[in-house]
């Protein structure tokens, strides 16, 4: 079953065409890696799916539902049930690890007991149980990476978008976290759309590579 469909999507910035009739289908439990040089439109694709950009032409559907088409947006980002890990992680510096992970649960109106349970489970998944009250600035690069992942996983999205999430890490940590990302995806079963310009990283993570 398809989770995300982009159909002939075009997008321009200031008259410069970044995407021209681009199409993509992401199936359930698939790990797709978008591979390409800087400036080729990889991040634009993620931002279109997330709802931060509107396609000039073409359509985007998520879980069979049309979310944007031809310059019009039908579903806002928070209504798309997607998770996204940003290149710079975008951890909220004023909130603790718990606050970062809990934000989405609160936004969805989950009761306190349920929130606590899910935070504990998710932080356990990424081995961060002992850092629950730390602020992002007090964590190492790898730990911050895991917080970003936990913040997304706790909401159990059907699709997770990752925008070069390992690019700022050293080589050793990069390789270790790749394996963790694969293990988590296989365990939890979400679809993954992963952007990188690093070929070995792409080959290791992907079940399918899309070059653009």
């Amino acid at each position, binding site marked *: 079953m398809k989770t995300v469909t982009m159909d002939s999507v075009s997008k321009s910035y200031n008259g410069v065409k970044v995407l021209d009739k681009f199409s993509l289908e992401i199936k359930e439990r698939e790990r797709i890696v978008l591979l390409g040089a800087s400036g080729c439109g990889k991040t634009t694709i993620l931002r279109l799916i*997330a*709802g*931060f*950009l509107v396609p000039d032409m073409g359509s985007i559907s998520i879980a069979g539902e049309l979310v944007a088409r031809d310059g019009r947006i039908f579903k*806002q*980002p*928070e209504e*798309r049930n*997607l*998770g*996204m890990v*940003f*290149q*710079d992680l*975008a*951890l*909220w*510096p*004023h*909130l603790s690890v718990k606050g970062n992970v809990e*934000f*989405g649960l*609160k*936004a*969805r109106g989950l009761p306190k007991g349920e929130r606590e349970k899910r935070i504990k489970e998710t932080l356990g998944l990424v081995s961060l149980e002992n850092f629950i009250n730390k602020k992002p600035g007090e964590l190492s690069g790898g730990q911050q990476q895991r917080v970003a992942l936990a*913040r997304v996983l706790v*909401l159990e999205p059907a699709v997770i978008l990752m925008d070069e999430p390992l690019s700022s890490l050293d080589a050793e940590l990069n390789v270790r976290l790749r394996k963790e990302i694969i293990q988590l995806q296989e365990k939890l079963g979400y679809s993954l759309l992963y952007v990188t310009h690093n070929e070995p990283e792409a080959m290791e993570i992907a079940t399918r590579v899309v070059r653009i």
Partner: protein
Amino acid sequence: MAKRLFLTFAVLLLVAVAFLPVLSMFAKSIMVEGHFSLAPYSEVMGSSHQWNLMRNSMVLSGLVMFFSVAVGLPLGILFGKSDFPFRRFLAGIFVVPLLIPPYILAVSWSDLLGNGLFGLPGAAFILFSIFLPIPMLLTMVFLRTINPRLEEAARLVSGWPGVLRGVTIPLVLPGVLLSAVLVFLLSFGEFSVPNFLRFPVFPVESFTQFSAFYNFKAATAATIPLVVVTLVLLFAEAGFLREKTYQLRPSPDIDSLAPLGLGGYRWPVFTAVAVLALVLVIVPLAVLLIQAGGLNIYAEALVGSWGSLMRSIGYAVAGATLLAFMGFITGYLIQRKALWCWRVVDSMMLFIFVLPSTVVGIGLISLWNTPETTFIYSTPLIIILGYVAKYTALTSRISVAHLGQIPLSMEEAAQVSGAGWFHTMVVIVAPMAWRGLAVSWLVGYIFCLRDMGITMLVYPPGYETLPVRIFTQMANGSPQLIAALCTIMIVATLLPVGFIWALLRLLNRKLHI
């Protein structure tokens, strides 16, 4: 070496211009007939009248702070974050009262409402309309420093109201708190509006003691509570906020974030904001125009005050030029932490800026009113020194923000190419910071031109400025003439602002930077 020497000299100069006057004032106030005495202070502190004044000052400043932040924060978010129509234009309208001498609005509202405006509500309302732009502008500035990815991450799970509550507002909170402190202290030190509206507050007391009774010691003693409150709030600001407000840099891809869509609320909200602008800004300005009446009144006002107007502009141009220079040097010192005392210099400038003008004015007189320094005290130099003392904090902060966008590597590249520090500053850093210098000059010009608190106390006979002239005529001058003078004052402020703003935009476009 040249760098350290030059910066040290600049710091010493600033200490002499800004800090020594205040120090000299206190030193003189505790010496009675050559002996140490706290008698003037015990008189002030022991008087219930003084404590009533203090209560009035605190209530007035508290009210102004509360309402300015309560309205300024949402306005800042609307103008800085949403798809609100004509947001730049409306933001500009709200800023106008901050640019003109405060008492002009008091004159205008009193023309409209008569005695109904007197007292606490009137003073609080007028100061609110003057200081409202501070939280509004600081919110807008801080919004531009937020990494848009932080809000996008929240947008994936929440609508804009939740994002604003959980992410945006907490991230701009240092700016909002800083604006609250500034509004409180500026309201606390403001004396022309409460004085005109007959609401007794502390700065009026020290001004009266000095100008009406020429009781120097009592005037100085009456400034002590002002200094104490200022210091307490500044220490709080330094402790909680300063590190967060030093390195204000716009987030590089701030414009990539889609604006907050107001949807169906867009036009109703616009109408509400436009009505607020109409009441707070347009109505008082229109009242002045109507009150002044025909062109013959303007001609009479211009003929009578031509000298004051030209002096005002001349002093403001000289003051702004010095302020831009001093702000650039101290901004560099603070941004690059070039001397160990950078934090002390910054705190000192901020302290003098938020210190009531009456205190700074009395300090200047105390230090420079000697036979040896007549060349300063009896010439416009004393006014210019007052401007530099009081307003360098503003131009310095502007320079810090602009210099923060110039990578250190630019200087280092010039230095490894063989350029000395001065050469690097003149050829590399200053040209790269030209926008900051231009904005500093403009802000310096506006604040020098609108200044009344310092000028009123220190201007030598025959050297009065237009704001002083208007203020002295307010007691018994014709309302038409005062309204015309106020309008001339507004034009003298806004014309250069509009011209330089347009020039900056043109240069930005031509230079493609």
